[in-house]
């Protein structure tokens, strides 16, 4: 039999090529049908992580608190006080906590495919479920973090206000943005394994350019082009929005919303298509 005969035989009998990447719409439908898999995987991973060490879920909030204390002391001491924002503690805590959400999703996404080799090799399901499971898990971890963040804000004297409710839409947008980032890093590390080594570095760069412990607007006030560049960093804008609604003395400007919305839409749709295009590559060495 020649190859063409076999292809004809296959199509005559309604056989389809296995492992073929389905069209984008079918891919999304398949993913939606198995959404239970992603949420259950996220829940089990979370439970496993919690039972591993004694403090369990406590670490989820303890880690950013320790980070905030560390940066607070170091930069509170060495930075000239005129660049230090007012309500430094509230300012810093919001920055560190919101940044934590971004960085954990990014590194989790980078590891989501390469770290689940045996699962990917033994079962076939839309691979996008793995980075989605990471985002779901980080989102669940975000909730106690935000609660603790609010408690800290109250303790340091921020008044509780209706505007705190704006946290919900801002975090929704940030989740979309993080999903896009997780999808992109998930595929990139499959192609270039070495990238997993660089992810912590990228995360550091974003940390220092997002104005976590200093006010970018003030520090870069006389460097207009650098300030514009820094404002284009969506992580900075998500943090600035949260500060604007929750910490007094941080004005919100319209560009922050535009960049937040734009980044969420563009990053997540690009991430989806980018990840889907690589579907046949995953699980292959």
């Amino acid at each position, binding site marked *: 039999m020649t190859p063409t005969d*076999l292809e004809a035989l*296959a199509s005559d009998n309604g056989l389809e090529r296995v492992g073929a990447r389905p069209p984008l719409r079918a891919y999304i439908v398949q993913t939606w049908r198995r959404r239970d*898999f992603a949420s259950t995987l996220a829940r089990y991973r979370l439970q496993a992580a919690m039972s591993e060490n004694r403090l369990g879920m406590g670490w989820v909030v303890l880690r950013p608190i320790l980070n905030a204390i560390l940066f607070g002391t170091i930069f509170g001491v060495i930075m000239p006080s005129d660049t230090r924002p007012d309500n430094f503690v509230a300012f810093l805590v919001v920055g560190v906590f919101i940044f934590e959400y971004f960085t954990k999703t990014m590194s989790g996404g980078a590891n989501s495919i390469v770290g689940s080799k045996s699962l990917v090799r033994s079962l076939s399901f839309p691979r996008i479920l793995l980075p989605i499971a990471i985002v779901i898990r980080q989102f669940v971890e975000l909730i106690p973090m935000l609660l603790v963040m609010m408690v800290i804000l109250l303790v340091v004297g921020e008044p509780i206000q209706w505007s705190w409710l704006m946290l919900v839409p801002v975090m929704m947008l940030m989740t979309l943005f993080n999903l896009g980032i997780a999808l992109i890093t998930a595929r990139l590390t499959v192609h270039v394994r070495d990238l997993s080594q660089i992810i912590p570095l990228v995360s550091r760069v974003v940390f220092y350019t997002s104005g976590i412990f200093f006010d970018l607007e003030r520090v870069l006030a006389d460097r207009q082009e650098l300030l514009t560049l820094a404002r284009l960093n969506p992580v900075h804008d998500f943090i600035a929005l949260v500060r604007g609604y929750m910490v007094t003395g941080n004005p919100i400007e319209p560009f922050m919303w535009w960049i937040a919305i734009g980044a969420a839409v563009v990053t997540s749709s690009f991430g989806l298509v980018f990840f889907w295009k690589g579907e046949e590559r995953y*699980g292959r060495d």
Partner: protein
Amino acid sequence: MTEGSATRTGHPTVVVDDLHIKYKTFASGKAASGTRALLQRQRGIRVVHAVKGMTFVAHEGESIGVIGHNGSGKSSLMRAIAGLQSPASGSVFASSQPALLGVNAALLGDLSGSKNVILGSLALGNSRAQADAVYQDIVDFSGLEEFIDLPMKTYSSGMAARLRFSIAVSRDHQILLVDEALAVGDKEFRAKSEARIRELREQAGTVFLVSHSMRSILDTCSRVLWIDHGNLKMDGDPQEVVDAYQASKN
């Protein structure tokens, strides 16, 4: 290749068309024998041509044994049929998504057996409610009730194989690929799983069984493929192929 597919009845379920599989790996030691230059990563690349142009057609109601020496390419072929390994060239067509049961298919070692049961059955396409409904059947079939709450990485290889097999057969698959998954099971479980394989075959399914045990190949298969160094050396009646294979080893 002894027998054409013309003599077979039933609709084709799997068509393997001039399939090639290659692995690219970084060899080290002598094979790499390169210089020290860091950026010349290419030096150590070795291409293993694991499957070299296989062609065959499988039909409804067939259970096909796959035999061959270690490293002949049996597992590679199974992974390609399951769509888990993309071919270097050629293609595989199937009537529905084949389910593969391999030896190293530990799902999530950190999680308990019961969580692996639920996740495995969700990944196979069950809804949460269906997964909960078949849960008890899976556990009963595996006979691992008392170990079900332990992490799967603590299971013996036989126990892990039992659990994976039980998960895989909990859903009716038209095409089931069993890659030595039964080899580590004890006598009782082997009998139980072979009965289940025959049952699947009778429901007009197609089963591929990779095994080094000629006994279980002869007991369960209606056709045997003999693979030798990535080539399909013989394809036909179980007794004939097994005899030829055993003769070649002496």
